[in-house]
């Protein structure tokens, strides 16, 4: 099977499942179809990755798709997390339905939109066209907006509305940036679709007009930065991630943010090529550092567990943005690793938190207690997850943060204290709240549930494994990706 067919399978399965689930979503097996579709997507993703691993970066489907080490690893990650989340959501949503929080039609809608979301993210990653990237990013937002308001509570609707409006505004700025990018590219590459392809743009980045590109980057930064929830454009993120169904929070935090960052990094490479200065990098470092600090201090004040985790997502996106901005092989390597382990760890925590809040019928940190005794898997999963996300060794996030910190001390020592301060405060805040949740006696209002084991265990095992031993293929992969970004 060649790579073009592989990509078509990869995208086709998710789109196909979306259509199937939209039409036949009311049948009993819908959650299983959802899992199956995601698993097939994952299999295709792995196949594509092996192809790229063997033959290197390649164009596919004419020049519509482009896969290299950078995006294929994100594609595999996406399909993997989408599969495990689908497994988790099977149990989770069944329970929500028993509680009467969602009905028949909404479940159908939920499944169809879930697959559509995965499709749009994969399209974002694999497309070679900057315009199509924008379109599918917008599609990813649109498909999840109504999922955030799935429960139809006033809070959920408010959160979804904010998400819709703010991301709409943000992404509009990104479109303006894309227009400017096309304007600059058209001068060199001539009119037409060719001037919007990453591969062509990368080839001629040295000839692009620097002033236009610097302006374009500001708009792209604001646009995709909104999507990523970077401070001060983060207002919508804690609400949307906090109020939606937990599986959606997991994929939003774990996948959508990564994709926005991916887009931004691709743009940064172009701008760097054109400007030959550290302009774009500096902007990214600034946004990243502010995000880390603001979100770390916001973490201290959170009373809602899912909102707290969303702030932690902002913080980690800040770290990755900062590291990409810093540039250099070590920081970039660290950032790539960070995206990977953060996705895995964050979605694992969301899985456990979802179960925990179902057990206590609340998301309030103060009301969640005695998880160790109530449900050891959920309790220990949450404990280890928080440890991982806070950057404790031996988990993978420690490795990536360590790499980034090392690079910071070497290349931008002035930022290092702020970075450390942010990491320290976040660590303290996360740890303080997790202790009260896991320890103690089982409160009377806690209800026993059957948790989905596989996703949590799988994610945590991977984060742990990467922390203590970096597989050779992953190592080489990241190196290739880092090379492609220089």
């Amino acid at each position, binding site marked *: 099977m060649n790579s073009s067919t592989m990509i078509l399978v990869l995208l086709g399965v998710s789109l196909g499942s979306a259509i199937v689930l939209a039409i036949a979503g009311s049948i009993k097996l819908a959650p299983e179809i959802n899992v199956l579709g995601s698993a097939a997507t994952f299999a295709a993703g792995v196949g594509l990755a092996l192809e790229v691993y063997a033959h290197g970066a390649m164009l596919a489907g004419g020049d519509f798709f482009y896969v290299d080490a950078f995006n294929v690893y994100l594609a595999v990650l996406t399909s993997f997390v989408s599969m495990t989340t689908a497994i988790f959501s099977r149990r989770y949503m069944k329970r929500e339905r028993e509680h009467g929080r969602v009905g028949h039609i909404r479940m159908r809608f939920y499944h169809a939109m879930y697959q559509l979301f995965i499709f749009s993210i994969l399209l974002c990653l694999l497309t070679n*066209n900057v*315009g*199509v990237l*924008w*379109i599918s990013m*917008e*599609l990813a937002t*649109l498909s999840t*907006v*109504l999922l955030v*308001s799935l429960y*139809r*509570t*006033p*809070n959920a*609707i*408010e*959160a*979804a*509305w*904010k998400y*819709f*409006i703010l991301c*709409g*505004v943000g992404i*509009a700025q990104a*479109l*303006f940036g*894309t*227009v*400017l990018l*096309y*304007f600059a590219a*058209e*001068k060199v590459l001539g*009119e*037409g*679709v060719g*001037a*919007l392809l990453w591969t062509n743009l990368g080839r001629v980045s040295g000839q692009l*007009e620097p*002033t*236009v590109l610097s*302006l374009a980057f500001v708009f792209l930064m604001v646009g995709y930065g909104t999507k990523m929830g970077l401070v001060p454009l983060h207002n919508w993120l*804690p*609400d949307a991630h*906090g*109020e939606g169904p937990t599986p959606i929070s997991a994929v939003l935090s774990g996948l959508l943010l990564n994709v926005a960052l991916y887009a931004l990094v691709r743009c940064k490479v172009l701008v760097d090529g054109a400007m030959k200065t550290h302009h774009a990098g500096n902007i990214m470092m600034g946004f990243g550092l502010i995000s880390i600090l603001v979100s770390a201090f*916001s973490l201290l*004040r959170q*009373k809602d567990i899912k909102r707290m985790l969303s702030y932690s997502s902002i913080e980690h996106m800040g770290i990755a943005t900062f590291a990409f901005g810093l540039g250099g092989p070590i920081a970039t390597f660290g950032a790539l690793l960070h995206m990977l382990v953060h996705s895995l760890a964050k979605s694992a925590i969301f899985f456990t938190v979802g179960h925990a809040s179902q057990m206590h019928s609340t998301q309030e940190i103060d009301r969640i207690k005695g998880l160790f005794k109530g449900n050891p898997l959920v309790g220990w999963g949450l404990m280890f997850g928080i440890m991982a996300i806070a950057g404790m060794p031996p988990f993978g996030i420690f490795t990536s943060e360590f790499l980034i910190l090392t690079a910071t001390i070497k290349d931008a020592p002035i930022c290092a204290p702020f970075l450390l301060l942010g990491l320290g405060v976040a660590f303290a805040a996360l740890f303080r709240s997790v202790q009260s949740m896991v320890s103690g006696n089982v409160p009377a209002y806690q209800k026993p549930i059957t948790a989905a084991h596989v996703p949590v265990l799988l994610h945590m095992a991977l984060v742990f494994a990467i922390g203590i031993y970096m597989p050779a293929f992953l190592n080489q992969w990241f190196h290739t990706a880092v090379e492609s970004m220089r």
Partner: protein
Amino acid sequence: MFKFYMPVNVASHIISFLAALVLLTAFGMLVQKRIYGLIRLFTWQGLFLSLNTAFVGYVANKHHLYISALLTLSLKVILLPYILHILIQRLKIRKEVETIVNVPMTMLIGIALVILSYHLTAPIRELSNLTTRSTLAVALATVMLGLLMMITRKHAVTEIMGFLAMENGLFFAATSATYGMPLVVEFGVAFDLLMAAFIFGIFFFQINTAFDSLSVEQMARLKEDD
């Protein structure tokens, strides 16, 4: 075959004239209080935009712009206003009048935004040799005015109108900076817009049911300082 000839410089005057009208409608939307009037202004803006695109297509001899013009016409002049009309009728908010705080201040900020856009686009104006390069500032201003409208308004429908006006500005920017994006992209953007239209339609009903009104001011539950 009937062929219509027009001197190119007359057409380019018409283009800048239409650009000015787009800007004028953007300002009008900023201070229009009645929802119905707002939709009418939006429709006019779409019409000016579509005509502008067609004229640019004529001047630059780019035939794919005729398709974009047609796309704008059908989407922003016919379909979206129609959807909005239906929504407004269903939601029974035909006569709703919104209070806008401090119109003069909004106007002054709007004027400042126009000047800002002019300065921001200055480097591009110098690099470009297209006849439409001067309208890029107007396009960016339209985007910014849409943004301003979204900030100043407190009603779900009017916020969406601001969003749509912003989208108009973006489309306009693409036309004036580069004679339009490739058609693949324009169709994709139009598709997203259409999907957004359905989503905000659903939203209006959800908000109306959950809050008993479409005013966004009541949406202040999720504040950080609790």
